[in-house]
């Protein structure tokens, strides 16, 4: 239930402050760009390179979208609608690539095939890294189609293929579309993979412009163009997500549609397909990494450096997660309980973070600290702030749905039993929602550990993290000595998937919900977010 009362002023004030703070990078980027003067901006905008970069980025994103659909649609159909053996196993396999940061995957591929480069290579790796964003929600959607719909279509004279084309796939389309856009957004913001394969997409061009030249207006203008493209994807994604929610009205008790019984030939082909996808997305990276690790024992591994990188990753990410929680809580508490124009715009503004690539936040905060707070330039605090801004939507999303699952009646009952507003919130709503809030914070922490471009731009001199160490070694093609860092990274990145799974399995008891269907859908969303948009 959403409270129709006016929200407390203090809560709105806190949320507005949070949003304003989180908006600093974007706002400052606008300020910085406009201060360069109209002519400089126009000149940068209409340079040939701007157009080339746009074409490259759009082409890469298009390739990734097509590739994701090609892999995800048959995979999801096999897992959701056939009796193929080992479905549970293959479902886990389909989710696992989310645990491998995409530039780690790119590193594993290039270490195995050093001649790989260009847009095709980048697209291949991005597809293998992001197809779970499409496959997992699509599997869930195909699974949740009510048998009644398909039976009705059959009774109206449609054959099996026509049923799939005219009923089942359209019903699953919103889920697939949302997933595709997520993969597209991820690709647009990706820095590591694009740089490893030397593709001149926005992120690499911006980074190079920032590093190499003193013409930072170009970097700023390109950043704004990138943000606009990303914003477009975020808005479309949000539209589709909203629409898909309206599509699952009339919950009731639905009967899952029956699975198609595959014959021997179909089973063999299906298993071959699933194994093939698994080999490409997990087998090759695993093989490459194992080989490199075995070889790197011969070369020297500096344990001290590895520990230093872990400490750097953990400390900066922890600080970032704490800051994100601080900014997210007032917004989540507000958005979970109240619906008004102010609340919607606050929430919408906070979600703009989805459209801010790490490169852009990094660049803007470099400008900002140099111009406004020189003392803060290249300090841990600014790096943590960048993480908080980048991953604020994750912290809000998780906390918000956890808070929304606590019936508001509980809190008002606590009020009538003599507890003031803040105490009632903490002892009842906050207490019941804390697994979700904690999971959101953990998610920010673990995603921040994987962040690369902003870390490269903002870290204090001499400060290293797992991501930066892996990066500097890959850059000089010291693949063997990078392997331990990649492995540590994968282990750390797998933790959120595992913890999240445990938390999601437990949550129905902690937060009782009358609407199980909705619950399931929320979970699918959150699983899709585990890997993060960056």
């Amino acid at each position, binding site marked *: 239930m959403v409270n*129709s*009362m006016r929200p407390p002023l203090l809560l709105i004030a806190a949320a507005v402050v949070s949003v304003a703070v989180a908006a600093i990078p974007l706002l400052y980027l606008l300020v910085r760009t406009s201060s360069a003067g109209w002519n400089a901006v126009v000149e940068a905008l209409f340079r040939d390179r701007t157009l080339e970069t746009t074409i490259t980025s759009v082409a890469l994103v298009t390739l990734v979208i097509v590739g994701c659909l090609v892999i995800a649609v048959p995979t999801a159909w096999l897992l959701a609608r056939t009796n193929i053996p080992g479905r549970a196993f293959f479902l886990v396999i389909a989710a696992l690539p989310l645990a491998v940061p995409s530039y780690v995957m790119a590193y594993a591929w290039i270490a195995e095939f050093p001649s790989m480069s260009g847009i095709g290579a980048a697209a291949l790796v991005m597809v293998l890294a992001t197809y779970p964003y499409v496959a997992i929600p699509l599997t869930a959607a195909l699974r949740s189609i009510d048998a009644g719909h398909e039976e009705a279509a059959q009774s109206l004279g449609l054959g099996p293929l026509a049923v799939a084309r005219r009923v089942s796939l359209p019903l699953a389309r919103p889920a697939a579309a949302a997933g595709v856009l997520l993969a597209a957004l991820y690709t647009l913001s990706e820095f590591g993979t694009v740089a490893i394969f030397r593709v001149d997409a926005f992120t690499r061009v911006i980074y190079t412009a920032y590093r190499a030249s003193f013409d930072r207006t170009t970097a700023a203008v390109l950043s704004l163009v990138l943000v606009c493209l990303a914003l477009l994807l975020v808005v479309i994604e949000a539209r589709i997500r909203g629409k898909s929610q309206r599509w699952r009205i009339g919950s009731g008790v639905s009967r899952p549609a029956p699975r198609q019984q595959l014959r021997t030939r179909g089973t063999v082909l299906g298993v071959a397909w699933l194994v093939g996808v698994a080999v490409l997305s997990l087998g090759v990276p695993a093989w490459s990494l194992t080989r490199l690790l075995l070889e790197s024992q011969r070369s020297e591994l500096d344990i001290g450096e590895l520990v230093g990188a872990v400490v750097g990753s953990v400390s900066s990410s922890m600080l970032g997660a704490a800051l994100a929680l601080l900014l997210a809580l007032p917004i989540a508490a507000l958005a979970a309980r109240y619906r008004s124009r102010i609340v919607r715009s606050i929430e919408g503004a906070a979600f703009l973070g989805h459209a801010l690539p790490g490169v852009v936040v990094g660049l803007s905060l470099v400008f900002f600290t140099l111009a406004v707070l020189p003392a803060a330039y290249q300090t841990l605090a600014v790096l943590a702030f960048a993480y908080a801004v980048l991953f604020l939507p994750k912290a809000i999303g998780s906390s918000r749905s956890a808070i929304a699952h606590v019936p508001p009646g*509980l809190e*008002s009952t*606590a*009020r*009538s039993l003599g507890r003031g507003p803040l105490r009632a919130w903490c002892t009842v709503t906050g207490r019941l929602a804390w697994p979700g809030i904690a999971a959101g914070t953990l998610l920010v922490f673990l995603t921040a550990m994987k962040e690369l471009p902003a870390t490269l731009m903002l870290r204090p001199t001499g400060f290293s993290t797992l991501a930066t160490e892996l990066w500097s070694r890959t850059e000089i093609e010291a693949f063997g000595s990078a392997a331990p860092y990649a492995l540590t990274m994968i282990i750390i990145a797998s933790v959120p998937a595992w913890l999240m799974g445990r938390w999601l399995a437990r949550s129905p008891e*902690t937060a*009782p919900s009358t609407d199980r269907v909705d619950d399931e859908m929320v979970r699918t969303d959150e699983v899709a977010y585990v890997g993060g948009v960056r």
Partner: protein
Amino acid sequence: MTTSPAVPQLSLQNIFVGYGGPMVVRDVTMEVEQREFVTILGPSGSGKTTLLRAIAGYLRPATGIVTIAGTIASNERTWLPPERRQIGIVPQEGALFPHLDVAGNIAFGLRDKKKARARVTEMLEMVDLSGLEKARPHELSGGQQQRVALARALAPAPSLVLLDEPFSSLDASLRFDVRTQVRRLLADIGTTAVLVTHDQEEALSMADRVAVMSAGRIEQVGAPWTVYDDPTTLNVARFIGDLVELPVTEMQGASAHTAVGWVPIRDHSESESSSGRVVLRPEQLVLVAERGVGPDPQGVPGTVESIRYHGHDSLTSVRLNDGPLVDVRSAGGAGVAVGDVVRVVVTGTARMFADPVV
């Protein structure tokens, strides 16, 4: 809280409540005496839960004065938040805290943690759930949950308890028992209670007084039998119980002529317009078999169209020869069959209302 008996436990004066749009509660004025049990009865959307939330302090009325035990809880200038009103609330579906056991739920509102244990034991005894201190809410049946919710509301010894459709989630057989228990318990400890419901049987059977709400207004407040037998508005008459509505064809003094014959009108004033409708309860009509009537037959003739048999009584729909269909209630079976020709006789007096403006 001790107050002199003259002070009502709850007083509402000209309360208006809205959510920013049109007012949902309009000009409600009523008082609830100490130790009284009042039910607010109304269809869904009538504003009764909104009124309850305004009394509890979850909503601030747009205008009007809420006074609890002589203390102003809400008017134009002052507003007591819910935690300072000392009102016990039993919400719909219980709303027990799922992260606390039964003892934790009941002790939630107790300030003195040292005495809490004894109080929890006492409360559990009172609601007949001794020994369930360590049980979790989801392990309890619906009726048990509801009783724990009541114990939780009563534990801090509030002087006023608000119950928001507390029995609607229980199944019919359980509902009756829990209702009886709750009513007796509240009477025993002498707590003032306001219960909101859309279930007229619940409202009539539990209350000292019933307030009937419709479209945000309280249309009538009175003893259960008063609102049933003597509704002051057509809305109230229609909302409570079954109704026979008949247009008046002719007036003679305080008697109105209708399709079932002459009916004496209660509280008739000459100034009232002579057109309108008479409302009767089905039990005011009596069936007489057509055969064996004397030369001066009573009542008006008609044909039985349908019979709804409920065991303890039955409702017979009779199509009068003049046209209208009337329901007649008989104790037990009606002793007639569909198609029988019968006569309908009216007993007692009725109220007459002006035709509603369409």
